[in-house]
């Protein structure tokens, strides 16, 4: 190991030399500059590797004295790691800044070096006063660097920074000197030994004063207005260092002074950190300037890290180094890299509005990186933040820190809200402009994105239970490979994905049993089927296949997950993939955002539940541990269930669905509707098969689930009839249909579950069919408004037949398969006796006829429009799966027993009583009977006979034109005026308008409005006035002190 003192030697020497060498030319100076930075990075990295390999940590003593008499620098494991990342970041940011450094005065180089050196010192020193010195070195260098930027914004930001920093220094000095007085030493380790906080309030005050100055440097709410200004105004390369490296060093200082703190102070730190996290993310909601937004996010993340760290220490969990590493370390490194990357990107883009960032789309690689950084910040797999958050919730729940968990998840949710809004804007905003990149700017970005991915993989290995995540490796690799193959034409990728998915399904499916097999068929075979329409798309279809694979990977992993971690990771991967599929639609941006927010919100609630489970059930990650749950089963059930309910869009949580499904592309709509919704149902089955009687107090949750299901059916269907947009109509219909599924499951009986599965299977078949058919129509006519279509039966007969079969199956009219569910519903009602809910459900089901008819009539019947006279039938690749699905529906209609019988047998495992008995093809229950094949044949024969009768008597019918209608003795003039399509069920609204008021929408709008107003209110404190910021700091100190001393 190289002596770490060289870190300082090199920096100082280079610093002095630079101004001389610069006389020989800037390139020579830059060479020395980069060499110095590289050497520092190399030394610290080498030290880190050496210590990791078992070397002793290095101690440097000044003038040969031993502590506590000497100033002492330490290079242990932590120090070497932190110096390494700080130096590497310093080097990368230096490279990034090369253009600027070429033109600036040479002092910029010197100051930059001093800043990095100061950070090294901050990390390494073990002496309190020395800490102050390094703090000031860093600060002065930073102030000067900010000041070099000659514009009024950065100057005023720098000045505010200086007076705030001055105040912080004041506290630091006072704290230091009093601590010295009380302990007689300045050496941190000796001080920690000598300090006795119980000896009097003055000692506490001294420690408090020291702590508060460190905290102020960590930018707590509300004493952080100056920091926001700096983030917004200073140069991007520099801000990357300030936001990531400086914060890292300050966090390390906090880590170092932790031994001085007592429980109350730790709790104060935790409280401040988490408050900052929640509030600054809240304020981020209202932010439209990208760099200030990143500022809010940085402040929030730092708050999170310090809060979580303090809680870990306070609760004793930090004594486990792995826990500290995984949780606090994971959050930290995630933020460290992602935030630096985002600030660098901000420099590349140089736009002052979030929308302006769409220029990134000119360079797909940059979009990819942007996505990586954003997703990492939000904490989605496969990035370290995800694993850290997971472990955090587990550990916190184990320690009983529920409130903290809630705050962490709330803050994360708010952060996700604005980050995904930003991502959506980048992906969807149209406009001109381009972004110029150079190698020097690309390198740091590439390295940091790769580092995030690599660390993500690493964390997935280190995390407890991480070995189970192997099931996701292969598909994720495939997705990654598809990113690289994105330059290929769509049909090649389509073929590739179909082949690989078929192969995967072939491997996976035989190993599954019972309902898992059934869902496997829906997820994977259905997935392959719905990839076929992809052939209809020309060009490259960039960014479609990786995410499609990701979504299916998540779905497949869901099937075979055995631990809660696997389940949750699969869940998030699936959500992520589907988000990117959904946002592909032309007007999808707001809907994809709302999809993501509901999904993330649901997932967080579910995570709470999983954490609770981990906590109360002996830290087991196995899904089977749900079954042995004895305490708080109801609460855990409710939390996890809420997560799944958002996915199946139960009433109240449904508002994301219509837009997300309605605006998606032709083949994405059926994927997310027919297949993805079943994931929520699958989750519910997993949950409910484990916890059979979920009670909170005396309340049976399933009873209220049945009401929710029934109301969802009723309102979902009712809302569907008012839609003018064909795909939205189908989307609302999905809401309703998943209500049946929920209702059936809530019965908690054999037949109830069978009903649910019958509905689910049927919904998969007809919804895929309908979405494909309507999607095909939309592809051709380029509108989704039904009243703009009409008469298309003549142009698109196959699509018409698809929709016809689809709506018959949907509405549950015999002889097609939808009837299975309706029949079973009556049976379970008699069995269970929940008549009222049943009634609401059945009435809701009847309303389905209205939108079914409207869908087929307004699109295919009535008057063909002028401009649709030449449209062609939907493309063949879209038709082929429709035909397959129609055959499947017919088959399922004729032989329902072939599916329901084995599923029923499997369900005996959970519900031994009340099974359906089968006689050949006849289903028999205690109440009724049904023979699908007989009904189909009888209906077929009758139909054929009547048709024959009509043909005999009326074979010469004259075919007439579409205007040859009785028109009150006039003639129609235009098809538009003759086609009744708009506001078709006006009278229904007149009669039952009260039920279709958008209560849920209003509620969520209200929540959003409230959050935004609160954000606006809070952020008004950042008046931009430096003095106000000083007041904030002083008030902050006073309030925290009052809290700490309990006065």
């Amino acid at each position: 190991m190289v002596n770490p003192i060289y870190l300082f030697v090199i920096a100082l020497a280079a610093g002095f030399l630079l101004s001389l060498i610069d006389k020989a030319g800037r390139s020579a100076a830059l060479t020395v500059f980069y060499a110095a930075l590289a050497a520092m990075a190399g030394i610290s990295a080498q030290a880190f590797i050496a210590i990791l390999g078992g070397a002793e940590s290095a101690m440097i003593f000044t003038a040969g004295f031993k502590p506590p008499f000497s100033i002492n620098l330490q290079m242990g494991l932590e120090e070497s790691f932190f110096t390494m990342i700080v130096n590497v970041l310093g080097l990368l940011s230096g490279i990034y800044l090369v253009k600027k450094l070429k033109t600036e005065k040479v002092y910029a180089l010197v100051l930059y070096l001093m800043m990095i050196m100061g950070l090294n010192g901050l990390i390494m020193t073990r002496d309190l006063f020395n800490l102050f010195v390094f703090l000031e070195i860093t600060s002065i260098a930073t102030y000067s660097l900010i000041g070099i930027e000659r514009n009024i914004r950065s100057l005023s930001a720098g000045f505010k920074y200086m007076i705030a920093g001055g105040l912080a220094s004041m506290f630091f000095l006072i704290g230091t000197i009093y601590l010295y007085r009380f302990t007689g030493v300045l050496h941190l380790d000796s001080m920690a030994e000598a300090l006795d906080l119980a000896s009097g309030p003055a000692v506490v005050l001294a420690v408090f004063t020291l702590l508060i100055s460190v905290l102020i440097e960590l930018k707590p709410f509300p004493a952080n207005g100056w920091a926001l200004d700096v983030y917004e105004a200073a140069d991007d390369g520099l801000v990357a260092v300030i936001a990531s490296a400086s914060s890292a060093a300050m966090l390390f200082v906090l880590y170092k002074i932790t031994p001085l703190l007592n429980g109350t102070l730790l709790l104060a730190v935790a409280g401040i950190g988490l408050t900052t996290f929640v509030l600054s993310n809240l304020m981020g909601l209202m932010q439209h300037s990208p760099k200030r937004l990143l500022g809010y996010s940085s402040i929030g993340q730092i708050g999170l890290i310090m809060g979580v760290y303090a809680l870990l220490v306070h609760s004793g969990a930090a004594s486990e180094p792995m826990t500290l590493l995984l949780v606090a370390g994971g959050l930290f490194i995630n933020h460290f890299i992602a935030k630096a990357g985002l600030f660098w990107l901000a420099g590349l883009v140089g736009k002052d509005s979030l929308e302006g960032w769409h220029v990134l789309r000119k360079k797909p690689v940059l979009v990819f990186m942007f996505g990586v950084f954003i997703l990492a910040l939000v904490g989605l797999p496969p990035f370290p933040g995800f694993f850290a958050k997971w472990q955090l919730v587990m550990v916190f729940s184990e320690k009983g820190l529920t409130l903290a968990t809630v705050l962490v998840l709330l803050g994360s949710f708010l952060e996700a809200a604005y980050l995904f809004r930003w991502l959506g804007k980048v992906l969807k905003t149209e406009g001109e402009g381009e972004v110029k990149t150079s190698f020097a700017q690309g390198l740091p970005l590439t390295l940091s994105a790769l580092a995030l991915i690599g660390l993500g993989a690493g964390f997935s290995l280190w995390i407890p239970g991480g070995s189970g995540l192997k099931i996701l490796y292969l598909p994720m690799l495939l997705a990654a490979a598809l990113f690289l193959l994105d330059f290929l034409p769509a049909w090649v990728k389509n073929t590739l994905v179909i082949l690989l998915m078929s192969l995967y399904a072939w491997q996976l499916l035989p190993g599954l049993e019972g309902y898992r097999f059934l869902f496997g068929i829906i997820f994977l075979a259905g997935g392959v089927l719905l990839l076929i329409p992809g052939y209809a798309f020309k060009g490259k279809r960039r960014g479609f296949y990786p995410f499609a694979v990701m979504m299916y990977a998540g779905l497949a992993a869901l099937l075979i997950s055995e631990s809660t971690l696997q389940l949750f990771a699969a869940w998030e991967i699936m959500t992520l993939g589907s988000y990117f599929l959904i946002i592909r639609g032309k007007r999808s941006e707001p809907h994809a955002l709302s999809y993501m927010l509901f999904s993330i919100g649901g997932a967080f609630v579910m995570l709470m539940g999983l954490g609770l489970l981990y906590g109360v059930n002996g830290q087991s990650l196995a899904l089977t541990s749900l079954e042995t749950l004895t305490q708080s089963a109801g609460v855990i059930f409710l939390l996890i269930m809420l997560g799944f309910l958002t996915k199946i869009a139960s009433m109240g949580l449904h508002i994301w669905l219509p837009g997300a499904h309605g605006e998606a592309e032709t083949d994405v709509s059926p994927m997310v509707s027919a297949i993805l919704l079943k994931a929520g149902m699958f989750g519910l089955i997993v949950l409910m098969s484990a916890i059979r009687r979920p009670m909170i107090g005396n309340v049976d949750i399933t009873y209220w689930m049945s009401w929710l299901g029934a109301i969802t059916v009723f309102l979902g269907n009712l809302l569907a009839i008012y839609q003018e947009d064909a795909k939205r109509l189908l989307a609302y219909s999905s809401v309703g249909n998943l209500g049946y599924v929920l209702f059936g499951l809530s019965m908690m009986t054999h037949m109830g579950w069978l009903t649910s599965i019958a509905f689910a299977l049927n919904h998969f078949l007809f919804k895929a069919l309908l979405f494909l058919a309507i999607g095909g129509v939309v592809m051709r006519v380029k509108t989704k408004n039904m009243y703009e279509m009409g008469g298309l039966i003549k142009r698109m007969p196959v699509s018409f037949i698809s929709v016809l079969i689809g709506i018959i199956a949907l509405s549950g009219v015999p002889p097609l398969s939808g009837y299975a569910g309706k029949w079973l519903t009556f049976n379970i009602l008699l069995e269970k006796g929940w008549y009222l809910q049943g009634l609401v459900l059945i009435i809701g089901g009847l309303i389905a006829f209205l939108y079914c008819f409207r869908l087929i009539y307004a699109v295919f019947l009535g008057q063909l429009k002028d401009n649709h006279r030449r449209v062609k039938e939907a493309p063949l690749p879209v038709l082929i799966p429709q035909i397959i699905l129609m055959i499947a529906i017919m088959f399922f209609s004729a032989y329902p027993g072939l599916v329901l019988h084995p599923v029923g047998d499997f369900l005996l495992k959970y519900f031994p009583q009340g099974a359906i008995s089968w006689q050949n093809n006849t289903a028999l229950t205690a109440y009724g009977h049904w023979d699908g094949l007989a009904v189909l044949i009888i209906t077929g024969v009758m139909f054929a006979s009547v048709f024959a009768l009509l043909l005999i008597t009326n074979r010469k019918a004259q075919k007439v034109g579409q205007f040859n209608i009785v028109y009150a003795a006039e003639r129609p003039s235009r098809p538009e005026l003759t086609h009744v399509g708009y506001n078709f069920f006006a009278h229904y609204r007149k009669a039952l308008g009260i039920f279709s008021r958008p209560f849920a929408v209003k509620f969520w709008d209200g929540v959003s409005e409230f959050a935004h107003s609160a954000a606006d209110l809070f952020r008004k404190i950042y008046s931009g006035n430096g003095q106000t910021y000083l007041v904030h700091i002083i008030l902050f100190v006073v309030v925290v002190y009052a809290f700490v001393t309990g006065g």
Partner: protein
Amino acid sequence: MSSKDLEKRRVTGPDGEQFDVDPMQDYFCQERPKEHEPANKVWESFLNWARAESLWILGYGTGCGAIEMRPLMTPRFDAYRYGIQWRPTPRQSNVLVIGGYLSVKTLKRVIRSYEQMQGPKYVVALGSCTINGGMYWDSYNTINRLDKYLPVDIYITGCMPRPESLLAGFEALKKLIKEGKGEGQNLYARNFDEYKANQKKIIRDWDMPDYNW
């Protein structure tokens, strides 16, 4: 509604392609009315009996005489007992009652309604106006002789004819049909060009297709 609606128009399809739409060709059936041969005698006479005993009248009051039709529905005259009913759509009607004087404007609608009725179909004309124009014989705006424009099966005289006369007229029509003489539809098809020429001569703003199926 003007004849402009039926001129060719250029439209843009969803994919941006442009093409012409000719409403006359595209929206209306261009098939001429055909003659329909009666079935063999015995069967046809049974069918004619059914047709005669089930006279469905188009509820369309074309002129002042329509007022005389309403009493037929009332208890006093009660035409229902003779198998006479009113239908609201020409598609389901067999009898078109022309209630007296016929303005040119109405004639256009009458022709359309008549052609939309399914055969065998019958025309009953009321009053002198339909025979020679009656008191409107020199009006600029009414027709004089309905027979020139539509094949009339029965004229009922009077100005206006009383409901009793109408009932008598319908009885006469029934007899006609039973005798197999209610072939107005075939007559119209056979002399279609002549009828059309007459119609177009008097209806100067002819803004509809020639064949109103």
